[in-house]
């Protein structure tokens, strides 16, 4: 996902001199070519995320479209007040993007996990929050950013995730993508959990259960039409995210469903409890530790359908 996103930024920047790629001293073996090719459109801000985020806002207010890159917590939690005051309040065209969403850097330890970013960024007025589900989606996000006048937060995983979409997609900010059609259960996933959702849907299919899979790449603004359709047309909704169950996609869907008139579907959030990982391990290990697996999702869907 990371490489697809970067490559799309590079391509756009070659056509649009407003675009500046800013990094917090990260991007080894990714950014060097662009740095040499377009020095006026590249900036290494150093390991100083507060200054980086305010500078990004300052440059954006002078007409730039700034893509500001770092890992996980650093461009979000570390400098959240700069994101709020300088980027969001001024409506600055800054797209904060990070690799290392969730447990991507699993064995690096808790300091390098981020499971609260969607919650805090979703609470920021005017900030679009996106977690693409595969490299094809990730490659579409930069163009959507340039097309929209406002700030963004984009959560990426790492390099090397598989493509989930079979071919080109129509990617629109705030519009979910239906990856699998189905009328029994809805699996609404964001970011890396889209893969788990499709695999869970395959398992359910083998049991004769038709699961709708939605890639909810835009967590804010949430595609309420897609959630409403899922609520009206399927009797069970599960949300899947590599993020705390507090404040992220599951919370956003729950907020909508709880205020929706009439009887609603049965609903459950798959995510990380409000707890730090108590084990050392890879992304796969930690996802399994927290029960974020295709088997657990499929089994839960079956039980909820039967209950």
């Amino acid at each position, binding site marked *: 996902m990371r490489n697809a996103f970067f490559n799309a930024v590079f391509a756009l920047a070659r056509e649009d001199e407003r675009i500046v790629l800013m990094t917090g001293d990260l991007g080894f073996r990714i950014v060097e070519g662009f740095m040499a090719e377009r020095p006026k459109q590249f900036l290494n801000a*150093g390991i100083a995320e507060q*200054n980086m985020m*305010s500078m990004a806002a300052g440059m954006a*207010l002078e007409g730039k479209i700034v893509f500001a890159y770092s890992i996980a917590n650093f461009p979000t939690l570390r400098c959240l*007040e700069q994101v709020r005051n300088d980027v969001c309040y001024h409506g600055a065209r800054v797209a904060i993007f990070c690799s290392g969403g969730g447990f991507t850097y699993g064995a690096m330890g808790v300091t390098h996990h981020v499971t609260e970013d969607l919650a805090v960024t979703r609470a920021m007025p005017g900030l679009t929050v996106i977690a693409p589900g595969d490299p094809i989606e990730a490659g579409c996000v930069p163009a959507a950013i340039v097309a929209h006048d406002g700030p963004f937060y984009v959560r990426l995983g790492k390099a090397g995730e598989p493509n989930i979409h079979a071919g080109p997609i129509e990617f629109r900010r705030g519009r979910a993508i239906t990856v699998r059609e189905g009328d029994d259960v809805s699996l609404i996933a964001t970011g890396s959990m889209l893969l788990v959702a499709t695999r869970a849907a395959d398992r359910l299919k083998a049991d004769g259960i038709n699961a709708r899979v939605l890639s909810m790449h835009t967590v804010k603004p949430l595609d309420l039409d897609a959630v409403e359709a899922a609520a009206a047309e399927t009797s069970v909704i599960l949300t899947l995210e590599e993020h705390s169950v507090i404040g992220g996609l599951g919370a956003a869907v729950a907020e909508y469903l709880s205020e929706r008139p009439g009887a609603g579907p049965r609903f459950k959030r798959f995510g990380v409890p409000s707890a730090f990982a108590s084990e050392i391990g890879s992304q796969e290990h930690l996802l399994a530790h927290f029960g974020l697996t295709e088997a657990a999702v499929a089994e839960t869907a079956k039980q909820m359908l039967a209950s």
Partner: protein
Amino acid sequence: MHNQTRPIHPLPTQERQSSVDLALHIRRTTVEMTSRANASHIASCFSVIDILAVLYSQVLVFDPKQPRWRDRDRFILSKGHACAALYAVLAEYGFFPKEWLATYYLDGSHLAGHATHKGVPGIEVSTGALGHGLPLATGMALAGKRDERTHRVFCILSDGECDEGSNWEAALFAPHHRLDNLTVIIDYNKIQSLGWVKDVINLDPLADKWRAFGWAAREVDGHDHAALEALLTGVPFEAGRPSCIVAHTTKGKGVSFMENNLQYHYTPPRGDELARALAELGVK
């Protein structure tokens, strides 16, 4: 319509006020604004008013009729709690109606108690959370350099604000990138929220710290208009380096009983005190 020719001053000569007259007028206006609203930070305003008066009357290039004019000098009051003084200056130059000043800090006003850009022409960015202004200014200065533009960026910090680490991130960055279109002015009134700066977190030697980071730094009496004007019209002090002016000031300057009195960081003069303050400022 402005062309590419950069005017040497925003206003025709006959409209220029002396900075001393302007400063006195702004002190009167500001104390009335804060006392009417029972708002904080009058002493913070009084320490910086002479700097603001010299900047706006003698240094900054701007056009009140086109607040976002691309060639304007950018000015950021990072110590956004002193915004009442800045609002008074902006109103004096016609950025917005003077009537707005009477509503400062009151329900439904355009003018909040920290510098707020929304709906207020002339306020470049919203400040008040300390440690944001200089990094914002640094980004603006970098963009200006890269676009080969000639406008300048000025930013005023408070001394207590220098406790914020984000300033020192920007202080490292700006000289490395040779941002000589950037000037930071520190309103060094020696008092912060809970006491003397030297007792909270000592900053001295302050100018030497900026020099060590690569800035061309000067010190000045922040109430000496001629000295301020000489320095501020002389930036950059060195080609290729950002400029730093440590302005030694007195908190509450201009009203005897407010000077160096921490109480007036929090409360404005009221009742008889207000009358005494205005009398000291020459209001009959």
